[in-house]
C-alpha cells in the first residue's frame, strides 16, 4: 500500500464537509450522514492497513513543499510513527462509530446536514493533526478543531446557555492556544525548525542539545504546556469542558471525551523530547495533572447531571494522562489515552442513549432503567467497570500502568493521590450506574425506551474495544504497546508490581462496594455524609469554586474598578465642573460684550475675505477629470525638466 494514500485520510472527511455545507441542506438532507459516515469509514479503511504496518515496525514519512516563503519553503507532510499510528487507529474507529451513532441520535434535527458537515470538518482537522509532521500544520488543525468545538457546542444556539457555553469554551481554550503559539515560536527561535523529526534529531543527542539555549527550551516547553492545559481542560483552564456539555451528546463523545481533548495530551507526547531535554519542567506537568485528576474526581462525586459527571470524569482521566507524561511515562499516558477514548466515548454514547430514551439529564429523576434499556445498560456498565479499573478490562491495565509509573519513579505522594482518585472514580461512576439503571423509577413522568439499532450497534462495538484494548499493554502480551512506543521515543519502563495492582484493584472494588451500599440500599446515608462533611461537600458541589474565583478575582475587580471610577467622576469631577460653570457664567457676561463687538467683527471680516478669495480661486475646480489630469501632467513635466536641469 502506498503510504502517500495517507493524504486521503483527512481529505475525504474534508470533501464530505465541503459537499455537506454547500449542498447538504438543499439536496442531501437526511442523507447527509451517509456521506460523512462513508468518508470516515473510507478514511478508516485507508488508515488501518497503514497503522498495522506501523505496528509491525514500519515508519512512514513524506512531505511536499507548499509555499515558497521568504528564503525557504514551507513544507507540509505526514509522519506516521508509533505514536501517531496508535492515535490514527483510535480516532478513525471511534470517530466512525460515533458518526454512525449520531446519524440515529440527531435524526429529525432541522440542521442535520450542518451537524454532519461540522463533524466531518472536525474529523478532517483531527486526522490532519494526528498525521502532521510539523508544528505549523499541527497548529492549523488544532485551531480548526477549536473552531469546530465552538460551532458544535453552540449547535443549539437558540438556547442561551449553549451560546454562552460555546463562547466560554472558545475563549478559555484560546488562552491556552496563545501559549501554544508563543511556545511554538520560541521553539522555532531556539531550533530553527518545527518539523518533528528534525526536532527529535536536534534534541535526541546530548551534544546537539548542548548547543541549544536551555532557557528558551524551558520557556517553549512551559508555553506549549499551556496549550495542553487549555485544550485538555487541565486546572486552571478546565472550566469550559463541563459547560461544553451543552452540545449534542455525540459531540460530547467525539470532541470532549475521545478525540479533541486528547489532542492536548497528544501535544505533550509529540513534544516529549522537548520536555525530556529540560527535565526541570516535568514537575509542573505532573503537579497540574495530578491536582486536576484529584480535583475533578472530587467534584464528580456530588454532581447530578449525567453528562456533567462524565465531563468531570474526563477531566480527571486527562489529568491522569498528563501526570503520566509528566513522570516520563509516555507509554503509560498514551496507552491510557487510547483505552480511555474507547470507554469514555462509550459512556457518553450510553448517556446519550439514556437521554434519548428518557428526555431527562438529572440522575435523580432516573432509576430502574436496566429493564427498559438493556443494551444501553450492559454496555454502560462495561464501560464503567473499565473506567473504574476492574481487571481485565482495558481501563485497569492503562490506569495500572500510570500508577506503576508514579510508584516506580518514586513519586509516592502522586501515587497515593492517584489511588485515592481511582477510588473516587469507582465510587462516582457506580453512583451514577446504580442511580440510573437500578432501583426503582423515581420519576413517574419518565417513560424510557431502548434506542434504535443504529445507536446500540456502535455501543456494542465500543464495548468490545473497551474490553480487549487493554491487552496489548498488559503483561499477557509482555507490554507490547509500551515497548512499541519506546521504539519511537526512548523513555523509562518499569516492571509490573503486585503491590500497585492490588492497591488499584482494592481502590476500585471498595469504591464500587461503597457506592453499592449507599445507593442501592441506604440512600439516606448519602445525606448524612454530606451533612457530616459539610465544607467538603460544598467544595465539591460548587466545583472548587473555580468559576466563583474567576468571577471574584478577575471579573469583579474590574467591575469594582469601573464603579470606583464612576463615583470619582460623579462627585469630584462633576463638582469641579459645576463650580467652574458658575464662575464661567460671570466671566461669560463680560466676554459677551467683547465677542459681539470685536470678535464678531473680525470673524465677519475673515468670512467676507474668504468668500472673495473663493470666488476667484474656485475657477480652478472645473470638475473635469481630464482638466485635472492635464494640469497634473504639465506639472510633472515641469518637474522633470527642472530636475534634469534641461533648462
Amino acid at each position: 500500500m502506498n503510504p502517500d494514500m495517507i493524504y486521503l485520510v483527512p481529505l475525504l472527511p474534508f470533501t464530505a464537509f465541503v459537499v455537506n455545507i454547500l449542498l447538504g441542506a438543499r439536496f442531501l438532507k437526511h442523507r447527509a450522514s451517509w456521506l460523512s459516515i462513508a468518508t470516515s469509514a473510507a478514511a478508516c479503511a485507508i488508515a488501518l492497513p497503514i497503522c498495522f504496518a506501523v505496528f509491525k515496525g514500519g515508519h512512514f514519512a513524506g512531505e511536499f513543499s507548499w509555499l515558497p516563503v521568504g528564503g525557504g519553503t514551507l513544507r507540509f507532510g505526514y509522519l506516521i510513527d508509533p505514536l501517531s499510528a496508535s492515535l490514527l487507529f483510535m480516532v478513525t474507529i471511534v470517530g466512525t462509530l460515533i458518526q454512525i451513532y449520531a446519524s440515529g441520535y440527531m435524526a429529525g434535527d432541522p440542521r442535520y446536514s450542518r451537524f454532519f458537515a461540522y463533524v466531518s470538518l472536525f474529523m478532517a482537522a483531527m486526522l490532519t493533526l494526528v498525521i502532521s509532521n510539523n508544528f505549523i500544520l499541527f497548529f492549523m488543525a488544532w485551531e480548526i478543531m477549536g473552531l469546530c468545538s465552538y460551532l458544535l457546542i453552540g449547535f443549539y444556539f437558540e438556547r442561551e446557555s449553549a451560546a454562552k457555553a460555546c463562547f466560554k469554551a472558545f475563549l478559555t481554550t484560546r488562552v491556552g492556544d496563545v501559549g501554544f503559539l508563543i511556545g511554538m515560536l520560541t521553539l522555532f527561535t531556539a531550533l530553527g525548525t518545527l518539523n518533528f523529526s528534525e526536532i527529535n534529531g536536534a534534541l535526541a543527542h546530548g551534544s546537539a542539545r548542548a548547543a541549544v539555549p536551555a532557557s528558551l527550551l524551558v520557556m517553549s516547553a512551559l508555553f506549549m504546556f499551556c496549550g495542553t492545559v487549555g485544550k485538555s481542560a487541565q486546572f486552571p483552564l478546565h472550566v469550559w469542558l463541563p459547560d461544553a456539555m451543552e452540545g449534542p451528546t455525540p459531540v460530547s463523545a467525539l470532541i470532549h471525551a475521545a478525540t479533541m481533548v486528547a489532542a492536548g495530551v497528544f501535544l505533550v507526547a509529540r513534544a516529549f523530547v522537548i520536555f525530556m531535554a529540560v527535565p526541570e519542567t516535568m514537575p509542573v506537568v505532573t503537579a497540574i495533572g495530578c491536582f486536576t485528576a484529584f480535583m475533578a474526581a472530587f467534584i464528580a462525586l456530588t454532581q447530578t447531571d449525567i453528562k456533567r459527571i462524565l465531563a468531570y470524569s474526563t477531566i480527571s482521566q486527562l489529568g491522569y494522562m498528563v501526570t503520566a507524561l509528566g513522570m516520563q511515562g509516555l507509554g503509560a499516558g498514551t496507552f491510557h489515552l487510547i483505552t480511555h477514548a474507547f470507554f469514555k466515548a462509550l459512556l457518553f454514547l450510553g448517556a446519550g442513549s439514556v437521554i434519548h430514551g428518557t428526555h431527562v439529564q438529572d440522575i435523580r429523576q432516573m432509576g430502574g432503567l436496566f429493564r427498559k434499556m438493556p443494551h444501553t445498560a450492559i454496555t454502560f456498565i462495561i464501560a464503567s467497570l473499565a473506567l473504574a479499573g476492574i481487571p481485565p478490562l482495558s481501563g485497569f491495565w492503562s490506569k495500572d500502568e500510570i500508577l506503576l509509573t508514579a510508584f516506580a519513579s518514586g513519586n509516592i505522594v502522586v501515587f497515593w493521590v492517584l489511588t485515592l482518585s481511582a477510588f473516587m472514580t469507582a465510587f462516582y461512576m457506580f453512583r451514577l450506574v446504580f442511580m440510573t439503571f437500578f432501583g426503582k423509577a423515581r420519576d413517574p413522568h419518565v417513560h424510557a425506551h431502548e434506542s434504535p439499532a443504529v445507536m446500540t450497534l456502535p455501543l456494542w462495538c465500543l464495548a468490545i474495544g473497551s474490553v480487549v484494548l487493554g491487552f496489548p499493554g498488559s503483561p499477557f502480551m509482555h507490554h507490547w504497546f509500551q515497548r512499541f512506543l519506546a521504539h519511537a521515543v526512548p523513555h523509562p519502563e518499569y516492571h509490573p508490581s503486585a503491590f500497585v495492582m492490588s492497591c488499584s484493584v482494592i481502590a476500585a472494588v471498595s469504591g464500587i462496594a461503597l457506592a453499592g451500599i449507599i445507593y442501592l440500599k441506604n440512600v439516606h446515608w448519602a445525606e448524612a455524609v454530606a451533612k457530616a462533611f459539610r465544607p467538603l461537600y460544598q467544595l465539591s458541589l460548587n466545583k472548587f469554586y473555580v468559576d466563583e474565583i474567576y468571577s471574584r478575582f478577575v471579573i469583579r475587580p474590574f467591575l469594582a474598578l469601573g464603579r470606583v471610577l464612576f463615583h470619582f467622576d460623579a462627585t469630584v469631577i462633576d463638582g469641579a465642573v459645576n463650580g467652574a460653570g458658575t464662575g464661567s457664567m460671570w466671566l461669560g457676561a463680560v466676554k459677551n460684550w467683547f465677542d459681539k463687538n470685536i470678535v464678531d467683527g473680525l470673524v465677519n471680516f475673515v468670512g467676507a475675505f474668504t468668500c472673495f478669495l473663493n470666488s476667484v480661486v474656485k475657477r480652478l475646480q472645473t470638475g473635469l477629470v481630464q482638466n485635472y489630469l492635464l494640469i497634473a501632467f504639465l506639472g510633472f513635466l515641469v518637474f522633470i525638466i527642472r530636475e534634469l536641469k534641461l533648462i
Partner: protein
Amino acid sequence: MDILNFGIKVGIYALMAGTLVLAVGVVTLRNLFHSALCLAATLIGTAALYLVFHAEFLAAVQILLYVGAVVTVIIFAIMLTEHIAERSVAQRNRQSLPALLGILVLIAVTGRILLKTPWAVNPATVGARVTVADLGAALMGTYVFPFELVSVILIAALIGAVIVAKKEKSS
C-alpha cells in the same frame, strides 16, 4: 542570408511605423467604433513586435486577452452606448492644444535622454530563449505572491464590475 535579414529589418520598421499610424488613428478618429478597431490592429502590431523579441507566449496572451477579450468588451460597451456617441458633436475637448504641446515636450525630453543613455545590452539575456515552462516555473515559484495578488485583484474587479453595472432594482 543578408537579403533575408535586411528584409526582416525593413519589415520590423514597417511594422512599427504602421502600428504608430494605427495608434494615431485610435486617438484621432471621430468614430469610436473605428478607433476601437484601430486599437485592435495596434494591439496585434504590438503582439507581432513581441514575436520579434521571441516572446511568443506573451504575443499569444496579448492577442487572446486584448484582442479577444478586452477589445470585444470595449466594442460591446460602444454598441450599448452607441446612439449617444453618434451625435454629431465634438469628440475632442478644448484642451487638445496644450495637451499636444505638453506631450511633444515630453517626447522630446524623454527621447533625448533615451538616445543619450548608453544602453548596455546584456549578452546573457539577449540570447536566452524563454520557454513557456520557464515562465510557468517563475510564476509559480519566484513570483507566486504577485501572481496570487493579481488573481485576487482580478476577482475583486470582476465582482466589482458586476455590482457596479448591475441594474438597480426598481423600487
